[in-house]
């Protein structure tokens, strides 16, 4: 039996990198979405939420066109680095970031909205600047939102298939992630390694969720209804 450890490693790298990038990226975006009063904010929210409903192949198709080295962003990237975005690990990361964006912004936005403005006002009268209030009050009070976002993004990227197939293909060590490797194993009637990979993924996902729910319970105990 042969297990594609390289695919596991690549998947973990992709999911981890995507999670880190998205938590950073989603923070200002979620803050803006939670506090902006502009009427067209709904358009932005709808745009960000698109990956929730769009078939991954549709997204993959458009990204394939955007990433093509002949024109647009793909050409700009190609002239900058000499490498194409399509069928590369970098391209995969960018695609994952776009594809999982709503899974990061929505829980964080929700957490930001539920931080009471009264508590922030109290912080201001105690001498805390806006940035200070954000890091010392908003972030710790939003940690459940961040935990949820991190888990959702990681898991969602782990299970990504359609987009990867469209723009990444199946290059070992570059774009062959675990879902693609599993698909290939089945295609080639290699049921033994398919079983093993599927079982590992299943066990891993379950353990992650178990940890998350346990942590969530502890947070809710400590944070409770707030004051």
């Amino acid at each position, binding site marked *: 039996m042969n297990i594609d450890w390289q695919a596991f490693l690549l998947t973990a790298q992709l999911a981890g990198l995507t999670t880190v990038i998205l938590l950073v990226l989603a923070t200002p975006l979620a803050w803006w979405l939670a506090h902006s009063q502009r009427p067209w904010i709904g358009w932005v929210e709808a745009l960000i939420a698109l990956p929730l409903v769009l078939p991954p192949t549709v997204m993959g198709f458009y990204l394939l066109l955007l990433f093509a080295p002949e024109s647009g962003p793909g050409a700009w990237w190609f002239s900058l680095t000499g490498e194409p975005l399509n069928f590369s690990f970098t391209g995969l990361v960018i695609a994952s970031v776009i594809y999982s964006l709503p899974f990061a912004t929505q829980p964080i936005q929700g957490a930001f909205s539920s931080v009471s403005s009264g508590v922030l006002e*109290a912080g*201001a009268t*105690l001498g805390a600047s806006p940035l200070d209030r954000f890091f*010392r009050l908003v972030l710790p*009070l939003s940690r459940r939102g961040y935990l949820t976002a991190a888990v959702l993004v990681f898991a969602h990227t782990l299970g990504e298939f359609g987009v990867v197939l469209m723009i990444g293909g199946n290059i070992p060590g570059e774009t062959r992630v675990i879902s693609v490797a599993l698909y290939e194993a089945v295609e080639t009637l290699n049921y033994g390694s398919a079983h093993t990979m599927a079982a590992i993924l299943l066990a891993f996902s379950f353990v992650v969720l178990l940890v998350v729910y346990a942590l969530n319970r502890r947070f809710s105990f*400590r*944070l409770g209804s*707030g004051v």
Partner: protein
Amino acid sequence: MAVLRIDLEKNLGDFSLQITQALNIHTVLGVLGNNGAGKTTLLRLLAGLDPIERGVIEFGNSTWLDSNRGIFVPPHKRRIGMVFQDARLFPHLTVEGNLNFAADRAAGQLLPRTEVISALGIEGLLPRTPEGLSGGERQRVALARALMSAPQLLLLDEPLSAADMGYRVELMPYLRRVIDRFHIPTVYVAHTLDELTQLADQLLVLREGRCAALGSVTEVLVQLDLPEVASREQASSIITAQVTSHDLDYQLTSLTLGGQSLSLSGLVAMPGADVRVRVFATDVAIALLKPEGISIRNVLPAVVTAIRVDGASPFADVLVAVDGQSLRVRMTRASLDELNLTESQPVFALLKTASIASD
């Protein structure tokens, strides 16, 4: 003492706030007014928590707001300490963490931490989270937290309102202690007079966003045209008299007021000390002749200085001067007409000893 110069104009839908005053804050400036009079609006503007179209706020030598010169100092740079109606403690920090948050950001000389903690009696609460605290405990922690930020001006927004009557009684001595011990100029917003007669020395009365009265508590209490100080339960005046002796047997304190003696129930203060006594208007009666054979021990010669009659009410308010101090008297209109009182008429003011106590 601190001088707070304000010139504010703020419009909020139907409501507008318009105040131009120089407020001398000796110890505590009480702000009194009905709901919707603009008390909290004023306090939030002082803190810099709300935007304003036009205005000036100067505190001592610093300018916090001057719309003409484009100056707006944000709340975190105003060096204020604010206590809100709801304590607004940080739920993710312990009580001690809440205090540290304030102390870490304080500018200038910190108040001694142990003194703040002991003044508010929160030693035992330090490791706890806000979630498990009672309403009164939360307000004490909130007050301690505000003090730990070493404020130059303390803004208290009805700190007793969220607490029920039990907490009020519990919290009052702590407030008194904080005011006496730390000497921080304070603006204290309340909608009942009780707390203010005990804590404030100056009173600003707000009505529909305008200043209706400003002066010492003693002066404002005897303004007969102010409905805010005229309710049946609250109408009162404050007189100051000197302790002469104590009667240990009867448990009475003798005071002197312009050569007249006055007795007070209970044993208070040392001989020679001045005591402030709050006398409720409904506890004073007026006699034209000095009465004999009566249980009332305090019969003071007085002169009628003002009379206010409201035709729609059964009551009338009369002001009499006792040795230069004003005493507010509430009687029925019927009595007023029967006695045929007029201004500058000499009378006797009768105070039941049982009903007056030192403030």
